């Protein structure tokens, strides 16, 4: 072979390439496969490549030694600059640009985690070579975002040999675009720049995109899906040219496959796969149950326990990714969000895939508006199909699917439990991306059955960014789901506490007595002290016991506690005590019965459950004794039952109800504090009474 003189740059470049090709790490010999791939990446006609290999002597040797490799590279450079291939040209041509290799993607993946850091170093060069700058930008951004799903540690398993036949075509197309710009670049820059796409190949971003698809191929072969491999690789090329490096994007082929699988379980594409069937299906993938559970949580978007077609595809995609070592995301990626507008016919699904990409990738292109121009181009396609899509694509793209989804959900499953769709949506907002946050807040509106308080605030705050398109649709959806909601999601709890509140004079009393239901001693203690004193009281009323006045007062105070202060007449109403005494200690109050019977006797009819009866009696006593106060409270509390039902109304009603609630709250809080004070007094009295009792009984 002729001696080869290389410049320093060339030397370095060639040695790097050699190292790259020399995967077996035998210094001299490079494997044929890699070299062939590399040469193909140079985008020369295959006969030229053959010629080069022959010239450099590899054909003779049967392998590429280092010198052969270098010669081959130099010849490639020669060929790329358009010069005829001749051995003499190796040394004669001056200022030869370095051979350019447009990297074929998934052939050269795997094992390049080591090269990963290089990508970071050479980041600025990214946009230089064959990619349009926009894509370089995209790559840069998506690299950081995509690093999440692509674990550096677990190298993605790739089938390097599956798609080489198809790769050169796409690459050639790319190459031609960029080659014009490359030639005039100074060699140094070219060196760095050319090297970067090489490295970039092994970067996480693009490769994950391809890997998921290529891994899909593998999973196809290994697991339970038969799939045409070359078909998938075509998909990969199409993906690469689409410009969106979303690793979670589902290709058309994959989607079609998922749809076929869906059909095996559920022939109707608009139908649902029930949870049990889905469980069996995904258990076949042999993932641990915990992960399957997490996948389910992510993919069951509407939390209905069943999977629609989109949800199923998302779940399947996540299973595929997980099987190949990708960590599951914390929340559902954009591109996997169910697109609920396009389920009307399966023919539209391929159309929707690019839309999925568009709607799914605004995270990569920072403002939402920027995909708009590209969306415009696809509109003619979409408008032929579902006319909902024409509505969807304007700015609030995420609003409409959820509303139409809400409509679909409601209309399709009128018999199912409506509380499920509503409630998880209320719980889910922190998990959804911010694009869907508006959607969920809208869901709050329509799906709000019982929780008028908290969600109404979020509803009002999110109202503003909504456009007129959305409001129009909101009005559409507002009626049907609401009607169904209100009908189907009865709020049982609110009426009951109101009822009990209205019965008792205050929350405190209710709680107090509720807290001691089965402690007859406790409630008895509360009530007994009033009972005990009356016995000695009448006997001592004749006696000049000075302390009894206070006893009476205390006793009366304790029974008619809250209203003691305003209602002086009750002060001396011992019949109440005797009523209690009669209920608690019938044996002791024989002489009291004649006095106790009037009016209260009916109340004190032998109660089957003394505890509860006592509660009731005290309630009723308080009700009777507290007409003024209880009226106020009752009116306030009477408004409470109406409040949950006002949920379905518009914002003003909700705000009005909020105001009313707040007023009620302040009133009740005030009452609460007063009652607390009285409770303290009561306890003191009780203690003093007990002391006196001890004094009496001890001697």
């Amino acid at each position, binding site marked *: 072979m002729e001696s080869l003189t290389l410049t320093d740059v060339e030397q370095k470049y060639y040695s790097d390439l050699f190292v790259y090709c020399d995967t077996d790490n035998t210094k001299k010999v490079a494997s044929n496969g890699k070299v062939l791939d590399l040469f193909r990446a140079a985008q020369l006609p295959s006969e030229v490549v053959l010629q080069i290999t022959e010239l450099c002597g590899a054909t003779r040797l049967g392998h590429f030694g280092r010198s052969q490799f270098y010669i081959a590279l130099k010849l490639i450079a020669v060929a790329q600059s358009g010069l005829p291939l001749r051995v003499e040209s190796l040394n004669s041509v001056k200022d030869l640009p370095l051979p350019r290799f447009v990297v074929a993607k998934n052939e050269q993946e795997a094992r390049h985690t080591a090269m990963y850091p290089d990508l970071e170093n050479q980041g600025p060069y990214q946009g230089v070579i064959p990619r349009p700058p926009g894509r370089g930008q995209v790559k840069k951004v998506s690299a950081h975002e995509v690093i999440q799903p692509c674990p550096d540690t677990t190298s993605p398993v790739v089938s390097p040999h599956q798609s080489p036949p198809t790769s050169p075509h796409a690459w050639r197309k790319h190459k031609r675009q960029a080659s014009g710009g490359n030639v005039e670049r100074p060699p140094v820059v070219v060196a760095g720049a050319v090297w970067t796409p090489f490295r970039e190949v092994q970067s996480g971003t693009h490769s994950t995109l391809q890997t998921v698809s290529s891994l899909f191929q593998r999973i196809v072969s290994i697991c339970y899906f038969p799939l045409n491999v070359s078909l998938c690789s075509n998909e990969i090329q199409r993906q690469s040219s689409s410009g969106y490096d979303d690793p979670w994007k589902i290709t058309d082929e994959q989607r079609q496959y998922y749809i076929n699988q869906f059909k095996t379980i559920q022939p109707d594409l608009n139908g649902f796969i029930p*949870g049990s069937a*889905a469980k069996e299906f995904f258990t076949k993938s042999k993932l641990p149950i915990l992960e399957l559970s997490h996948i*389910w*949580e992510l993919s069951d978007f509407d939390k209905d*326990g069943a999977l629609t077609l989109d949800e199923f595809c998302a779940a399947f995609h996540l299973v595929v990714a997980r099987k190949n070592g990708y960590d599951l995301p914390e929340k559902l990626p954009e591109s996997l969000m169910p697109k609920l507008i396009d389920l009307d016919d399966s023919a539209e699904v391929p159309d929707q895939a690019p839309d999925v990409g568009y709607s799914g990738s605004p995270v990569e292109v920072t403002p939402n508006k920027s995909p708009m121009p590209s969306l415009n181009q696809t509109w003619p396609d979409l408008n032929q199909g579902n006319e909902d899509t024409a509505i969807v694509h304007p700015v609030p793209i995420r609003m409409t699917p959820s509303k139409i989804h809400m409509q679909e959900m409601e209309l399709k499953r009128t018999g199912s439990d409506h*509380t499920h769709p509503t409630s998880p949506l209320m719980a889910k907002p922190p*998990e959804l991306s911010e694009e869907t946050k508006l959607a969920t807040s809208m869901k709050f509106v329509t799906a709000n059955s019982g929780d008028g308080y*908290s969600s109404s605030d979020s509803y009002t705050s999110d109202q503003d960014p909504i456009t007129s398109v959305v409001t129009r649709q909101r009005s559409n959806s507002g009626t049907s789901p609401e009607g169904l909601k209100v009908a189907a999601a009865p709020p049982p709890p609110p009426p009951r506490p109101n009822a009990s509140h209205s019965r008792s004079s205050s929350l405190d009393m209710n*709680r107090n007595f509720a807290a001691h239901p089965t402690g007859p001693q406790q409630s008895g203690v509360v009530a007994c002290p009033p009972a005990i004193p009356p016995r000695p009281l009448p006997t001592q009323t004749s006696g000049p016991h000075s302390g009894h006045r206070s006893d009476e007062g205390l006793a009366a105070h304790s029974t008619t506690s809250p209203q003691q202060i305003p209602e002086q007449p009750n002060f001396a109403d011992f019949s109440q005590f005797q009523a209690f005494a009669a209920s608690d200690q019938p044996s002791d109050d024989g002489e009291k019965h004649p006095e106790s019977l009037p009016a209260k006797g009916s109340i004190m009819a032998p109660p089957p459950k003394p505890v509860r009866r006592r509660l009731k009696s005290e309630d009723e006593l308080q009700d009777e004794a507290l007409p003024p106060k209880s009226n106020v409270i009752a009116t306030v509390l009477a408004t409470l039952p109406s409040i949950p039902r006002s949920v379905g109304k518009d914002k003003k009603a909700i705000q009005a109800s909020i105001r009313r609630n707040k007023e009620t709250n302040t009133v009740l809080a005030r009452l609460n504090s007063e009652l607390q004070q009285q409770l303290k007094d009561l306890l003191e009295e009780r203690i003093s009474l007990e002391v006196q009792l001890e004094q009496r009984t001890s001697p």
Partner: protein
Amino acid sequence: MAVCIAVIAKENYPLYIRSVPIQNELKFHYTVHTSLDVVEEKISAVGKAMADQRELYLGLLYPTEDYKVYGCVTNSKVKFVIVADSSNTSLRDNEIRSMFRKLHNSFTDVMCNPFYNPGDTIQSKAFDSMVSAMMVQAS
């Protein structure tokens, strides 16, 4: 805010229990366990017409000097117990109710998951994140 939240199954074993001050966790476990007695009292208190009389939200189960224990039971006898700190502003009834509602909703989400077998401990991340949001932020 709550310092401890527990979900207890029908057979009175915990499906999920989590407290914020990690060092004192055992104390909260004990509190929740003893509160189950009160819950049992309340739900068995009704002698007459069973279903409609019984209140799902049980309210304050019992107060101690440090904290208050609130309870809520579902129709399937799954109990939710919230232990709230008394020292900070006393939580209003409404807030407690809304906390229980959120708990209940997340619990139904977990139940809807076909991969969750009723009776397993709840390991759902969504449920965990919801509970963390309700726990005391300060400690």
